[in-house]
């Protein structure tokens, strides 16, 4: 059986896998990092999105062996060691951008990549289109879009702290 070595949330792991083992299966079953979720089998829902080499991708649509030597960040690796939340996590909470929480890890990881790839900020339309690969059945997306806009201001230095949602 092939072996893969990859760094997940800063920790190096060497794991024996089948060639057909998906990255999401390695994360959830071998490493017991169950924060990354599986919501579909047609690579559409985005619940499984993680970062590999800094880019967001669907961990259900990549083999573990294809990630040999890669650096992976999952939702579990976002907050600081002292527990301080990433601005995107904080924004999702402030703006009520999650309800059942199942799509949330993938949504947050996608959102961070979206903001990173638009250093000048995003319009509402760009955010909505950028979320084409992330389905949510609970929120109707409205608060997710607001949270991402608010987080991008902090992540890109336009604000020193998160704008509070209007009451």
């Amino acid at each position, binding site marked *: 059986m092939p072996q893969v070595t990859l760094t997940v949330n800063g920790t190096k792991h060497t794991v024996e896998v*089948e060639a*057909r083992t998906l990255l999401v299966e390695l994360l*959830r079953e071998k490493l*017991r*990092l*169950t*924060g*990354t*979720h*599986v*919501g*579909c*089998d*047609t690579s*559409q*829902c985005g*619940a499984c999105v993680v970062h590999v080499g800094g880019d967001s991708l669907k961990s259900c649509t990549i083999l573990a062996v294809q990630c040999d030597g890669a650096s992976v960040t*999952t*939702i*579990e690796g*976002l*907050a600081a060691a002292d527990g301080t*939340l990433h601005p995107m*996590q904080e924004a*999702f*909470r*402030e703006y*009520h951008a*999650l*309800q*059942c*929480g*199942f*799509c*949330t*890890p993938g949504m*947050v990881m996608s959102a961070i990549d979206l903001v990173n790839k638009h250093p000048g900020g995003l319009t509402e*339309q760009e*955010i*909505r*289109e950028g*979320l*084409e690969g*992330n*389905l*949510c*059945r*609970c*929120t*109707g*997306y*409205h*608060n*997710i*879009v607001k949270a991402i806009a608010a987080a991008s201001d902090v992540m890109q230095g336009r604000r020193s702290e998160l704008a509070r*949602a209007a*009451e």
Partner: protein
Amino acid sequence: MNVAAPFEGIGASVRRKEDLRFLSGRGQYTDDINRPGQTHAYMLRSPHAHAAIRSIDLAAARAMPGVLAIFTGADLAAENIGGIPCGWQIHNKDGSPMAEPMHPALAIGKVRHVGDQVAVVIAETRAQARDAAEAIVVEYDVLPAAATMAQALAAGAPQIHDAAPGNLCYDWHIGDRAVLDAAFAKAHKVVAFETTNNRLVPNAMEPRAAIGDFDPQSGDYTLYTTSQNPHVIRLLMGAFVLHIPESKLRVVAPDVGGGFGSKIYHYAEEAIVTWASAKVKRPIKWTADRTESFVSDAHGRDHVTKAELALDAGGKILGLKVHTHANMGAYLSTFAPCVPTYLYATLLSGVYSMPVIYAEVKAVFTNTVPVDAYRGAGRPEATYLLERLMDVAAAEIGLDKVEFRRRNFVPVDGFPYQTPVALQYDSGNYFATLDAALETAGWAGFEARRKAAAAQGKLRGIGISTYVEACGIAPSAVVGSLGARAGLYEVGTIRVHPTGSVTVLTGAHSHGQGHETTFAQLVADRLGVPIANVDIVHGDTAKVPFGMGTYGSRSLAVGGSAMVKAMDKIVAKGKRIAAHLMEASVEDVEFERGTFRVTGTDKTKTLTDISLAAYVPHNYPIEEIEPGLEETAFYDPKNFTYPGGCHIAEVEIDPETGKVAMVNFTAVDDVGRVINPMIVEGQVQGGVAQGIGQALLESAIYDAHGQLISGSMMDYTMPRADDLAPVSVATHTTLCTHNPLGVKGCGEVGAIGSPPAVINAVVDALRDYGVRHVEMPATPQKIWNIINGGRRMAAE
């Protein structure tokens, strides 16, 4: 309580406690749970819509690597395992009970829909179980399928169940036909209308999963399951299917990733993994693939309706006649029979004064996935019918569609309002929500926006829907008399710990609704305990005494009221203890938000003083009251609750492609008292997204052979962020008069009010094409057909 701390009680938009674990990947959904020694199950499902099973050859499969066991319907039958029960019995017009065919957990003799369970393979890994399932050889004699209700009811149709001749489950009615006919005879105008309410797939983002975990040492069973109501599963599965006493069966519904109704039902896979775990003496985990979910989760809606509205010369409604065919699918799911009857026909008065209503509903078996409640459950179907009919009628009699509605509204002082279809609305103000919505949506200025859009070559339309619904289910005796096989009360236990923190045990279940925060707000408001010190426990039959679960927008109205009643008992007992401690009489002790005070004095005790005294009863009236400070209440509601409101949709059609874009959506809803405005807004936005999905995007489509063509998200259109425009949400409050919180429930209103608002807007946008109706979903293809056909009626 610290005065400087932000207010955490009723009315505050408190940010959610549960978010911290969800945002950090520490949620515990069923598939996240791994039991020691766990094995995996894979379900073999029928590829045919209707077939007799001639033989099942397991030999090759059994020999495959990692396989521990394979079971079929014969194995379950040999152990007297019961069929999956139905929780509601409807009676026919003649008083006879509905046809109630057996619903085996694994097929016996026949398969009746694509996806019907045929066998379960249990193996060391999921991949091994799936590999082995492919090696099972099933010989089918394929039978003609009755894929649609029309096919199922036709003469000579394939017979799906021996127990249901003609594939009819029931033929039910409500109302007095003779009175109705008399009213119609006097009508100035009768408006006829036909429509379909399209079949939907709920598609909560978390696929269903179940872990059966039998402990050979204790003989206890534990089932972890993605359920909205673990106690109901324990009851149905334990009593009717597996014959396991409740004392030996624990059901845990941990974090659940969305339900929308689809996770209410007791499903075969729950029973199978529980039973099989005792056979292999190891835990068994089953998780659905999404494609599998499409053919195994209960679908929603699927009505075909003909209606007639009788009007007088002044545009007042004289009566309504409705005939509906409702699709049950291949088997009766847990609540299915009540959805198109007592959750649908009883809402046909809507927000209007209607002297008489007569409705007939025929429930039909077809070779499709079972159909049951999905967000709104019957009320979206009723509202859609009514609000389309109101627009159609307004056009036919030449009245403004808003004025026509106003003329027929239940008056502001008309409450309590007894409808002709059993329900009595306690409170409401349909004028207030209408006026607020018209203002916010800029209704008056729409014509200018239409003209501006037309100059850009686009067709704009605006549509309105005024609705009421019935939720907060339900008074047990009432629903019992209507065929329910369970009570619909709720349970709440308030446990005040010695040092003053509180644990709440609730029979409601949170799968997105934020109960860990909102229920804690009730405690903060009443008992003055900070939310950080209030723990809401739900979803485990070993911890929570009992409960009926979360659906039908009942959690606050029924579950919250149970908590209030339990807190009443806490306060009552606390006053007696406080009176003793402060050497006053009980009548002189008042309580407000955590402080007991002797009236008119400075003598006070905190709740923590009292709880400590209750558990260390040294200075304590121990002869009169027992130690401890924990109370339980069962709350049976006196009536349904009746949220209502007004939704307005504005759309813009690109006539070259037929694509309908959402421009704006306004929702003004009366959900009674608002506990957490942020949560209410989220619930409405989410419901509206699903309603827009039904109106424009979603449709579960079967071909004539019973194959589900829209069998994955590649063909079933799920709403995405760029399909939706901002939704403005506001509330107008008239309190519920019969529960202690005055709440009405808000979980489903978004999905109920929105579809007709959107379709009314689409029809309005196509006004130059002489379109009377457009069936849901209003896809680009459908709209282009209309536009391309020129000035002709939408033919459906």
